[in-house]
């Protein structure tokens, strides 16, 4: 007798637990307000990344096409996987001395792991995080970027 | 058991164990020949009861290879580090402990694969990560692989 009772109790609990589950999915089915999907290409205009978002490493330039990079190479050594290459150039100073300045700050986006060590290491705050995130390209060579803009120069008050 | 008492106990069991100074753990270097019997005692004796092998590492010390066993007793909460050194780099072998601590089976396969330490009586000593027929053992200091290692 007891086992028959258990048999029906079993069925009852089964049905109850299944209905509890169906209640959850059923509730979401009838509440379209809960939909969380973002319509990505459509919302590009309104999509705003957080201000700390790590999109890529950039070198901010001011209005006079000046940056803060001295070309010291600390970021190059801080980088764990050789993402940054610094090519230096020598210029003749007015007082006759030769000075090394940055020629090209090459950044291989394809190798970057976004660890942020270069930005943390930079003594003159020349590097920053950019907000760009649509990095897909058809040609891998396009992922190699030169961060200092052509014809740019260093801001005068930066001392090494 | 505190570390001082444990040290006495272990030196009593294996008199030629070499004590090594370490801030964190009580560390001993055990002669390979006595290691397996000693390991059985470590696990079975009630006052030692080292039943949890929480790390097994292989280290290339250039002159020889070394296997480091990090042991803990779940009931007594004391910890112990054992080191076993092979004779030389090429033909050193260490007795397996995977009959004592089952977790050692995969760890020893990893050590064999990447460091080239052979384990006697291991039930299934094959390469674990790399494919069969791989030449060399990548974690060794003298391993050179022009094809796969990217130099910066």
């Amino acid at each position: 007798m007891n086992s028959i009772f258990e048999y029906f109790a079993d069925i009852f609990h089964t049905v109850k637990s299944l209905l509890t589950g169906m209640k959850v999915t059923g509730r979401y089915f009838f509440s379209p307000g809960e939909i969380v999907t973002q319509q990505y290409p459509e919302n590009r205009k309104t999509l705003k990344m957080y201000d700390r978002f790590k999109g890529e490493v950039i070198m901010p330039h001011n209005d006079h096409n000046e940056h803060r990079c001295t070309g010291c190479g600390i970021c190059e050594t801080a980088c764990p996987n050789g993402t940054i290459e610094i090519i230096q150039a020598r210029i003749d100073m007015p007082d006759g001395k030769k000075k090394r300045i940055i020629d090209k700050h090459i950044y291989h986006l394809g190798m970057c792991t976004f660890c942020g060590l270069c930005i943390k290491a930079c003594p003159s705050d020349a590097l920053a995080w950019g907000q760009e995130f649509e990095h897909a390209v058809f040609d891998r060579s396009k992922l190699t970027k030169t961060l200092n803009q052509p014809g740019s120069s260093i801001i005068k008050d930066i001392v090494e | 058991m505190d570390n001082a008492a444990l040290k006495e106990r272990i030196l009593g069991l294996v008199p030629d164990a070499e004590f090594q100074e370490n801030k964190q753990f009580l560390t001993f270097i055990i002669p390979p020949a006595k290691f397996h019997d000693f390991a059985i005692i470590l696990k079975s004796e009630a006052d030692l009861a080292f039943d949890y092998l929480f790390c097994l590492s292989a280290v290339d010390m250039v002159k020889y290879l070394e296997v480091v066993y990090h042991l803990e007793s779940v009931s007594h909460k004391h910890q112990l580090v054992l080191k076993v050194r092979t004779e030389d780099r090429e033909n050193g072998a260490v007795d397996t402990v995977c009959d004592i601590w089952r977790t050692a089976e995969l760890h020893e396969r990893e050590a064999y694969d990447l460091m080239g330490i052979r384990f006697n009586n291991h039930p299934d000593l094959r390469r674990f990560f790399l494919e069969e027929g791989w030449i060399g053992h990548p974690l060794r200091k003298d391993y050179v692989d022009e094809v796969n290692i990217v130099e910066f």
Partner: protein
Amino acid sequence: MNFSLYDFTSFNQWIDKFLYDHLPAFWAIAVEMVIIGVAILLFYALVGLFLVYAERKVCAFMQNRVGPNRVGPYGFFQTIADFIKLMLKELIYIKNADQLLFNLAPFIVIIASFMAIAAIPFAKGLHAIDFDIGVLYVIAVSSLGVVGILLAGWSSNNKYSLIGAMRSGAQIVSYELSVGLSLVTIIILAGTMQFSEIVEGQRDGWFLFKGHIPAFIAFIVFLISSTAETNRGPFDLAEAESELTAGFHTEYSGIKFAFFFLAEYMNMFIVASIAATVFLGGWMPFHVGSWTGFNHIMDFIPPFVWYIGKTFFVIWVMMWFKWTFPRLRIDQLLTLEWKYLLPINLVNILLMAFIVLMGWHF
């Protein structure tokens, strides 16, 4: 000709008469067959495409998603795009597969579902063939599909496929019993196996309500076992994508895969329409006792709409099952059938026979 949305009988008779007037008898029948064939094929394709779309939308809403929304308004043409893609895809040639059986299997599966649709009444006078053993025919034909599944699993030369096929075989053989017995319960009440008469018998109330508790139990059992018979979640052990990658159709690609896919949805449509016809009154409108006004409004909705509405409600419930429950294990699946559904069903038949005998039903 006197055409009405509420009664297709005169329309059919008009076509029949027209053909016989203009053609010899043999050709008239031949042309009729072709017309019916084309009509069903079109219906089949449309329903299949719509069901795939509906499933994707339903599961999307249950999962807080939007679902397909790129092709056409609300993604309505998504399945058509998918179908074109599947048609154009390469058919992968499987080495060491039994080529004849491998190629035959999808056709068996799809023909089995195609045949079952013939006996289903869509509206008054709108069915291909009105057997006096309609229910039996549908049960018989719909279980033919398992042959195709077994063949597909066997001939693919893949262990996953074979496991899936064997599971499917065990599953359908056992659940066929429950499907049959739960329909028998209603046949006792209806006193006929002819679909048109079963529907006619529900003019004053659906069998679900007429048959008291036994009919209700039979409906639940039918829902569960027909979900199992169509290999749908939570009983989709034959596919069991997290265990067997894709079960019996692992090795199929392109249009052959599409056949399996379509057949699954059509099987779902067929069992849903049987449920709608047998339990929920088929194309009969919903009537409540003596509410004449209400009944008149209900009568105003065409029978075809009633039929489709009920069928899709049952399909929606089946989708709801699928997207809520985790999958059963094979032994639990068989336990459910042999230890729970079958005894309940047998007792239920006795109960129903008793009720009918005493004349307690409405």
